[in-house]
């Protein structure tokens, strides 16, 4: 049986040494922040979110090949999680204000989803496999995270050996998805809510990221 971890670890350039802090990999890349303007939507986003496993995490109707899912479930069984382990809640209904945020990134073949990691949920250590967005040039594929809630103690997020904490709602980050193993857990008392935008970078993406870093925090009202 194939292991998703073994395959992705093999192709990663990460050092996989828990004693090293390599600034190239053991980090998350801060891109800027938005002025949060989605507070009114949060309750609905949280209550409308549904629990997801590795098998059910993908966009409805766009599941991965069975061989991919089997390899992921092999790891889950091997490491003791069990294949039906709930990793997070997801909400695929994107309210208009967050659709506007997503659209600003202007990525091609965009996938937008909202992660609502409830207290008690763990998304185990893994490497992303986003090359399917653009197999010929995976370097163009990017994943952005926009925090919709402030960090709370007990919200855990690792990128390699770096533990990311203390974020504010509106903070935008990205990371080296091809190489950096990452994981999350919620041992806090409230959900962690994150908008995730994945797709192929375009020129408009680059232009927007420049604006985002130049206008920090970026106010959506400024482009009405």
């Amino acid at each position: 049986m194939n292991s998703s971890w073994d395959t992705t670890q093999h192709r990663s350039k990460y050092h996989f040494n828990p004693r090293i802090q390599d600034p190239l990999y053991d980090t998350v890349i801060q891109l800027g922040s938005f002025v949060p303007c989605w507070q009114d939507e949060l309750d609905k986003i949280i209550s409308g979110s549904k629990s997801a496993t590795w098998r059910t995490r993908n966009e409805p109707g766009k599941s991965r090949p069975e061989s991919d899912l089997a390899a992921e479930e092999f790891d889950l069984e091997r490491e003791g999680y069990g294949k039906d382990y709930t990793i997070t809640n997801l909400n695929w209904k994107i309210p208009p204000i967050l659709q506007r945020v997503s659209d600003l990134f202007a990525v091609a073949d965009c996938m937008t989803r909202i992660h609502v990691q409830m207290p008690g949920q763990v998304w185990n250590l893994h490497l992303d496999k986003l090359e399917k967005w653009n197999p010929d040039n995976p370097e163009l594929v990017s994943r952005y995270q926009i925090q919709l809630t402030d960090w709370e103690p007990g919200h855990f997020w690792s990128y390699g050996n770096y533990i990311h904490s203390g974020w504010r709602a509106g903070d935008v980050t990205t990371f080296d998805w091809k190489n950096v193993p990452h994981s999350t857990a919620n041992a806090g008392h409230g959900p962690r809510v994150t908008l995730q935008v994945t797709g192929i970078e375009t020129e408009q993406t680059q232009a927007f990221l420049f604006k985002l870093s130049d206008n920090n925090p970026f106010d959506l009202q400024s482009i009405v």
Partner: protein
Amino acid sequence: MKKNKDRIITSHIDGTMTPDEKKATLVLQEQANNNWDTTRRRSKYHFDPYMQDPLYDTVIQLGSIVPCWQDNLEQIILESKRVTWQQLAHWRTRNEPGKSKSKKDLAAEEHITGRDETLYPTNLSWKIPPILQYVSDLFAVDDCMARIHVQMPSQVFNMHIDQLYSWNITNPDSISRFQIALTDWEPGHFCSYGNYLYTGWRAGDVTIFDWQNVPHSTANAGRSPRVTLQITGIETEQTREFLRKLKNSKPFVNWISKPYVDWRSI
């Protein structure tokens, strides 16, 4: 411990309660209320997620012991039991067999915000192998409770503040909880003390924290279990003596020779 509680009850009846005992009674009464709210109110912690107070947002490193329990780890992990299946039972069954908390305490803990039925804090093992019993004995705490936490991948011990008052209700400052890491840190092993995120520990590292004040939590999103020996009890003069030795000999090895040979030869 029991003596203290009996004394409090008696003094309450005969009206001879000292100020300390009155305070202790209040603590016991508070425990009947919601655990998180109660402990939070009593704690001196700032509860500001954007502050780093070196007094509270930290774990206290006491030294380290040369790991010599590797041969026992597999058995410890195998024998450890998930403390519960459902959330309620997690907190109900985490205590030493035969020494459960009061029903009121347990009911209060079960009301912590955000808990749900899928929360699995940890596995526990109450079977302490001789080499770890020896380690535990070195700390020389009174009314010692030693247990091994085996936090399996997927398990989450949600944010809480300890309630160890029952060890010495009239003088909680004398109560200590020590952690001895039995395995190295791995990515995905999460541990927070207030806003401080503790990582990178080595097997043998000994830590303590301000249990009365500091909210803490752990989770395992990694690929293998996190194993920790936890020792709780009332500090004695021998405890302080040992801690001095531990601090001054890094890592602490002096004790190994005799007992180590002894138990292995059995």
